[in-house]
């Protein structure tokens, strides 16, 4: 029971990060109907932005500000940098191809992904960096949950993800811009005819999706420590898997998919073997694409006849 609970917490932590990343994939797919494969690199830049703030503030062992303020600044900076990159991607890599065939923006996204990886290599070098979070928030700063102790950083990650997902759900359901996003996602031509500025909606979608990826980057830095210029590739693929499993285009689906992939990884490692972790995750992707391409909560595509 103790092991199961521990693995559930592990899966929840990882799943929270995947969920935030998957939201970006799903939101962009919802409005533009294409996959932003550079999203993992946006997350990577978010992680480096957080590291940059930590370094500027003196590093984890010699912070010039209280820990809470440092963490808050790291999140804000990562959101700002990730949003900036997301907006640049939309403006220069995707908008010029808005009316091209569906393959063109996909190829552009893959190119943008490699471009951002190479840019990170040049800017930060290929050396990995560490947030050294245990120096920032000691490991014994923990909350007891039944028979296990949960490190405060994990709680911070899970709570932050849940709060952001609730805020996003509220924003999409209740705010004027959120409603416009849903309208464009449902039918962009009709939305435009109703006076909705589709370009603006797309920009806002990239901005919010990228900001969430930036937060995910800092979360990974805090809870797992190591960040490096290629970290976005596999994480991006897993978040894409989460989006597909949950139902691509569906915001609650992305959250659900992220958590499911997190749990799948943790339980596979715990009860099967760590060797099969990636195999199981990507087998899920193939299975859903073959059997239920709309995922758990996605809308089945309707074809005009």
């Amino acid at each position, binding site marked *: 029971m103790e*092991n199961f609970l*521990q*693995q559930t917490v*592990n*899966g929840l*932590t*990882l799943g929270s990060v995947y969920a935030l990343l998957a939201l970006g994939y799903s939101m962009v797919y919802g409005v533009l109907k294409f996959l932003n494969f550079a999203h993992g690199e946006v997350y990577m830049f978010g992680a*480096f*932005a957080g*590291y*940059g*703030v930590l*370094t*500027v503030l003196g590093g984890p062992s010699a912070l010039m500000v209280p820990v809470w303020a440092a963490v808050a600044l790291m999140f804000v*900076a990562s959101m*700002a*940098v990730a949003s*900036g990159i997301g907006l640049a991607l939309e403006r220069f890599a995707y908008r010029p191809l808005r009316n091209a065939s569906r393959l063109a923006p996909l190829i552009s996204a893959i190119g943008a992904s490699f471009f951002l990886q190479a840019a990170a290599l040049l*800017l*930060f*070098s*290929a*050396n*990995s*960096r*560490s947030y050294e*979070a*245990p120096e920032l928030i000691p*490991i014994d700063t*923990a909350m007891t949950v039944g028979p*296990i*102790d949960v*490190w405060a950083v994990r709680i911070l990650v899970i709570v932050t993800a849940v709060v952001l997902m609730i805020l996003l759900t509220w924003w999409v359901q209740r705010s004027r811009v959120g409603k416009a996003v849903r309208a464009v996602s449902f039918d962009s031509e009709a939305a435009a005819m109703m006076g909705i500025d589709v370009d603006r909606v797309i920009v806002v979608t990239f901005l919010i999706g990228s900001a969430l990826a930036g937060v995910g980057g800092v979360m*990974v830095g805090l*809870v*797992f*420590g*190591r960040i*490096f210029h*290629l*970290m976005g590739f*596999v994480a991006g693929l897993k978040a894409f898997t989460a989006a597909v499993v949950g139902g691509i285009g569906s915001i609650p689906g992305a959250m659900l998919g992220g958590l499911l992939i997190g749990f799948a*990884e*943790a*339980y*596979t*490692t*715990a009860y099967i*073997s*760590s*060797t099969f*972790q*990636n195999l199981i995750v990507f087998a899920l992707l193939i299975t859903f694409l073959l059997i239920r391409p709309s995922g758990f909560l996605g809308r089945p595509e309707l074809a005009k006849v």
Partner: protein
Amino acid sequence: MLLALALVAAACGDGGGGDTTTTSADDTTTTEGETPTTAGETTTTGGEPMVCEATVGFIGPVTGPVAFIGEVQLNWFNYALDTFNAEMSYSFQSVEGDNQFDTAQSATLAQQFLDNTAMVAAVGPAGSDQVDAAGAVYEAGDPNFTFISPSSTRSGITAQYTGMFRTVPTDDDQGPTTADFLVAQGAENVFMVDDQSSYSTGLADSVEENLTAASVTVTRESVAQDVTDFSALVGTIPDDTNFVYLPWQVAANGQIFANQMAEQGKEAVIFGSDGMDSDDFTQAGSYIAAFAPDIAAIEGSQSILEGYLAEYDDTNTFGPPVYAAARVIFEAIARVCEAGEVPDRANVQAEVRNTDQADSILGSPISFTDDGDLAEGQFFIFQIQEDGSKTLVP
């Protein structure tokens, strides 16, 4: 935008390349000093003075996930070159290649080195996978090209490549040494995780085989090198485990593993292979295997270390074997010149094969087996202290 630029600058500022000047393999770097006129010259049989000239290459992971290895290796290579040139009044040249610990880069650099007709031999690459990539190119292009790896430990690899030598012992030495040590420490249950590289799986196989033969219970797991969340894996460590063996090449991952063990209250002691011998892994009480001794404790090597530290800031156990490898090549070239021959790949390789140093920076003799392995290889075990320093375990 200003914020973004500031953050980029901050992120770039730490953990960068240090003050080492790395030159692309496309360029040739000549050490300071002018070409000797009388000193460094050798007289041929015809009485004509002959200047002893040669170019030696270096391939290492100067950037990348194990840059801590490559930076120090490059520094020691340059130090060996500078001191040898000064000592002998030679002007050997060097070409430096950064493979970023990548096999494809290693193969590309090897081809560049082969195409450089002035180059007679090279030091590196560091890792066994990279040696495989470069070795295949050398073997196909010119088996007379000599390359000495200062840190590749996979057993049997030297037999595959005519021109390969190494100045470190093999996993045939590391595996049994590690297993014997764990048994002597009272290991009964060992949790072992390889990182799915050939270096790691080979070493894990060797240690597992030796531990099992000693009736130690081994639980074997595997995880990819690019994974940074080990919390689920840590959760599977049985409570009665007294040692965790990590034959890994990315030491930073080892520290994450240690942190996550602490987080989940796992008290087993970590034993890391030579790939974890880095400042990125500082878990107090853990053990590390090293293929080189602490040369500060070797009387004959202290002056070399002092000279090195006067020029470079940092060193670790990956450095001295590079110095040893470079000296083997330089001395082989010098012997060729002294014999009145012009150094080329074939005669340099023949002289490297004849190497018989009674003593070296590593505190032990250097000579090679027919395959190119060290004739007398030995592994060392260190324990990490609270202050991060490492103490040699007798």
